[in-house]
């Protein structure tokens, strides 16, 4: 039977459910299968073949979509001979013209800066790993930061907000959807796919082993 020493000797093979603290011996499930905490049903391990390459590829795609959306026409309206068009940056900064600079900064952060920062952090953390090289210094901090920023990345909520705004405007004016709008819709789809491939536990152990093997 086991003792405390026995457990502490192989700490690395243990996994504690981050949601309920239940302790298990980590066993890698087959590709595509998931190890679920039997007590609170939190997904613990969900490896996907080639996950690192896909996650990096999606991060690059997110970066390209976001940056190009900045420079494309977003929305324009036209009613009774009057027209007005707006870019993503105009929309994000619109509060600043009405003495709400803080809110403007917040909106810019939530829909532009945080998604860009997350993409850059993920690329930085995983790029060497993708080429079977030793991770760069700070790779682990970068990946942890990117995970902590996850709930504050709100591009997909912004897209739904645009949809609601369009319904409100449709009654009074003709609306033209620009390229940037479609890039943002694509961005939402890419983000959803990326999250589906991201098994945190696999990436953490890959980062740990990458440091050890090549260090």
């Amino acid at each position: 039977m086991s003792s405390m020493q026995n457990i502490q000797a192989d700490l690395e093979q243990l996994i504690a459910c981050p949601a309920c603290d239940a302790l298990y011996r980590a066993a890698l499930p087959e590709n595509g299968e998931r190890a679920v905490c039997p007590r609170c049903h939190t997904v613990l391990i969900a490896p996907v073949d080639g996950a690192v390459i896909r996650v990096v590829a999606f991060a690059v795609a997110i970066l390209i979509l976001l940056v190009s959306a900045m420079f494309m026409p977003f929305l324009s309206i036209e009613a009774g001979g009057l027209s007005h068009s707006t870019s993503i940056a105009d929309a994000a900064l619109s509060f600043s013209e009405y003495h709400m600079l803080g809110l403007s900064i917040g909106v810019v952060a939530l829909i532009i800066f945080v998604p860009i920062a997350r993409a850059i952090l993920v690329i930085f953390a995983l790029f060497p790993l993708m080429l079977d090289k030793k991770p760069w210094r700070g790779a682990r901090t970068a990946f942890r930061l990117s995970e902590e920023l996850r709930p504050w990345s709100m591009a997909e909520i912004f897209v739904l907000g645009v949809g609601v705004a369009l319904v409100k405007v449709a009654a009074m004016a003709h609306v033209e959807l620009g390229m940037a709008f479609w890039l943002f819709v694509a961005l939402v789809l890419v983000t959803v796919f990326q999250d589906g491939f991201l098994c945190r536990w696999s990436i953490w152990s890959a980062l740990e082993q990458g440091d050890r093997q090549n260090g």
Partner: protein
Amino acid sequence: MDEHSAVSEHVVTAKEAGLVSCTHCARVWPIGTAACARCGARLVSRDEKSMSRVWAWWFVGLLCYIPANVFPMLQTTFLARTSGDTIVGGAIVLMMHGAIPVGLVILLASVVIPIAKFIAVAYLALSVQFRLPSDQLRRMKLYELVEFIGRWSMIDVFVVAVLTALVQLSVVVSIQPGSAAVAFALAVVFTMLAARSFDSRMIWDSLETPAEAEPDDSRKDFLS
């Protein structure tokens, strides 16, 4: 999959095994370790201060949510006449114009979800503080729902941002944000912080049996 056979048994937690778990990367370390050597996160076995943080964010969130509903969210200037719409007022106007599903989305995201979230976070915090024996799995699902859905309340702020930027047709019609926008955005951020401060591991602590539970190998091997 034999994972369900384990549910009725007593599960050994990292805390009971004399270990501290990292909530960021799931690695375990001997208790007393200050930071996770794998991902660098700060390690706390059970964050005793988390409840005061939850309540602090909860109260500021509620304080912001009241003006968010009283003051206008956006102001429409139509031929030099300005009228303000509160969150609820704006949704009702939308529904009267026939856009019933969109009005319902706004009501759901800006009224139903925030209020339900205040109640849910308070219930979770009280249930942990008073060690209520209510169903752990159900409370866990509630917590996951609160964490998942809370961010979506921000939608109304984005709607106002887009409308303000887009609807600027010189003197005919223009839309400006109202002061409720700031209060509402803050209320959403503070309730997100309240939910994130909550240490969900404490939901499960009421299951813990006292010391006689010696860690046993057979109980750790059911993760298949």
